[in-house]
């Protein structure tokens, strides 16, 4: 039986190939279901650490359409650690100027001047298929260097049977079905996650739906590289509209249509063109030449699974949580799931951490998901006021924003994704340094300039002791783990601002996913050992 085609692919990355394993039941330490950005990112992170990983995908490449288009600095930092970011930044579009329109006119504009001393911009616009392609190419590079990663396209999971310490997976292929066993199964199979359904699990929390018409428009015209956002545009019978530049002369246009819509009518190319014409000519009065590259209607929900770990099955990305598109919190938060999960699973599989450490993947990323859902719900409430009075206030904000800077702070068309800080979570340690809040325990390490480039390049993918000022600490061996030492005797101004503040020296213990575990004003091997034990879930 042929595997079913659920969507058109943009291009082929991992074509189906018959493998010998289809004639027997093989055993794998880690199987990832879903070769999207989160599945590929998790596979790359695990494989580069040396953990064998098999990715199954029922298609042979990324789905057609731009889908996720905005990748945040943190996602790029993660990809950089995995060796995939350079082509993303090279291909991606960086924008700084945003304009906000209300009714028929601009109410204000802003310029997001980038902060100095980071390798990556705050975000880039890049079509999701490219993001997946660059991750896939990094996987090919890693494979050449010996990383035990295998991807099987055209392999559809049709059933799973969970047991205490493994999961048996039924797979369908163009050459018929076969089975394999996985010690650990990671479900990166998207919002409609078949794995979630097979386990009889569901989302919980606030359900929130809206319909969005997306039109990717190819336009050679000289249109500015800016983000335009409309509240109540007079031209398109939409509640909001967004225009965003992508690579390859593609512009993403989103129209928020509301609840009750006639999908077929809305997807009629003539109707889409009428909307796009009105939007593109709204400022200049002229309709530029363009072609429709891809159109779609999608609905979204803001909710998550109660827990992301179910025994030996782990959920990451959209399979575990969903948010509205405003704020770029979907794929970006999924990449943070990937980095959180990969090192923990690797440490558990190599016997360096107890299995219970994986519970912290769920608690930490559930917290991250809740923060994203909160932000995304707030943006959605601003975009679609739910009562007469909320609409009165929303419009009052927009009217005031035309004249007064203070009101612009209330205007919420999505707060761009920044990583959550795991404040007070049990696997993080003490904050004895009277240091900057941006680098407190629980936070993802922020970048800063160092002599040979950027700090994050030097942190790597293992536990690291970052010592600023003072004397170089001796290398540490704790719990059989060699803690790499990075000593910077004379920190740059940027590094001082972000990691020292008024302190003259500091010692940071940093996790393999580049999060701060604990920090002190001095070196104390005993305290470092205690913090490391906590980070590994051994206390």
């Amino acid at each position, binding site marked *: 039986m042929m595997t079913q085609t659920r969507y058109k692919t943009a291009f082929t990355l991992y074509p189906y190939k018959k493998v010998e394993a289809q004639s027997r039941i093989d055993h794998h330490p880690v199987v990832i279901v879903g070769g999207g950005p989160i599945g590929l990112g998790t596979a790359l992170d695990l494989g580069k650490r040396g953990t064998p990983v098999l990715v199954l995908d029922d298609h042979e490449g990324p789905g057609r359409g731009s889908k996720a288009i905005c990748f945040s600095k943190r996602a790029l930092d993660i990809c950089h650690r995995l060796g995939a970011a350079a082509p993303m930044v090279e291909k991606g579009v960086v924008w700084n100027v945003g304009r906000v329109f209300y009714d028929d006119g601009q109410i204000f504009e802003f310029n997001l001047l980038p902060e100095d001393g980071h390798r990556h911009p705050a975000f880039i616009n890049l079509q999701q298929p490219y993001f997946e392609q660059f991750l896939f190419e990094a996987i090919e590079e890693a494979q050449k260097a010996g990383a035990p990663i295998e991807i099987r396209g055209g392999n559809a999971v049709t059933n799973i049977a969970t047991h205490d310490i493994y999961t048996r997976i039924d797979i369908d292929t163009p050459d018929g079905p076969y089975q394999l066993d996985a010690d650990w199964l990671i479900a990166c199979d998207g919002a409609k996650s078949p794995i979630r359904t097979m386990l009889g699990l569901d989302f919980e929390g606030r359900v929130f739906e809206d319909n969005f018409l997306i039109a990717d428009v190819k336009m050679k015209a000289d249109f500015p590289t800016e983000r335009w956002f409309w509240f109540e545009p007079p031209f398109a019978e939409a509640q909001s509209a967004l225009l965003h530049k992508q690579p390859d002369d593609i512009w993403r246009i989103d129209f928020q249509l509301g609840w009750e819509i006639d999908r077929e009518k809305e997807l009629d190319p003539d109707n889409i063109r009428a909307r796009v014409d009105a939007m593109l000519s709204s400022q200049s009065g002229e309709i530029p030449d363009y072609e429709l590259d891809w159109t779609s209607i999608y609905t979204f929900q803001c909710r998550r699974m109660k827990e992301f770990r179910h025994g030996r099955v782990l959920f990451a990305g959209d399979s575990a949580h969903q948010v509205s598109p405003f704020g770029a919190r979907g794929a970006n938060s999924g990449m943070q799931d990937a980095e959180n999960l990969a090192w923990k699973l690797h440490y558990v599989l190599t016997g360096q951490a107890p299995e219970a450490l994986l519970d912290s993947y769920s608690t930490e990323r559930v917290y991250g998901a809740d923060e994203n859902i909160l932000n995304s719900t707030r943006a959605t409430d601003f975009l679609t006021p739910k009562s007469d009075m909320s609409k*009165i206030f929303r*419009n*009052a904000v927009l*009217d*005031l924003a035309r004249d007064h800077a203070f009101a612009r702070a209330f205007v919420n068309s999505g707060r761009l994704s920044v990583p959550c800080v795991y404040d007070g979570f049990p696997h993080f340690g003490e904050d004895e340094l009277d240091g900057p809040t941006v680098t407190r325990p629980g936070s993802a390490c922020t970048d800063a300039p160092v002599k040979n480039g950027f700090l994050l390049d030097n942190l790597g993918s293992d536990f690291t002791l970052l010592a600023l000022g003072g004397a170089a600490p001796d290398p540490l061996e704790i719990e059989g783990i060699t803690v790499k030492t990075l000593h910077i005797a004379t920190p740059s101004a940027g590094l001082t601002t972000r990691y020292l503040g008024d302190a003259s020296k500091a010692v940071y213990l940093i996790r393999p996913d580049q999060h701060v575990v604990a920090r002190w004003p001095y070196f104390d091997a005993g305290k470092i050992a205690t913090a490391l034990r906590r980070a590994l879930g051994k206390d």
Partner: protein
Amino acid sequence: MSITLIPNIADPDGFYDELLAAHDGLSKEESDALNARLILILANHVGDREILDQALRAAQNSGMAAT
């Protein structure tokens, strides 16, 4: 710091007059919008989240007592 709930405006009758006059001739919709803008401007001027919370609670409590 605590919110001021004792008389604090030098000319209460004059201000009250001005507040009502601002609504003269407005439709219900225009008046609602004006009130909303005024609340946002005043709230921003206050700024202090603690005071704003106390103001919200004071407004809620008095409304509850009246019904």
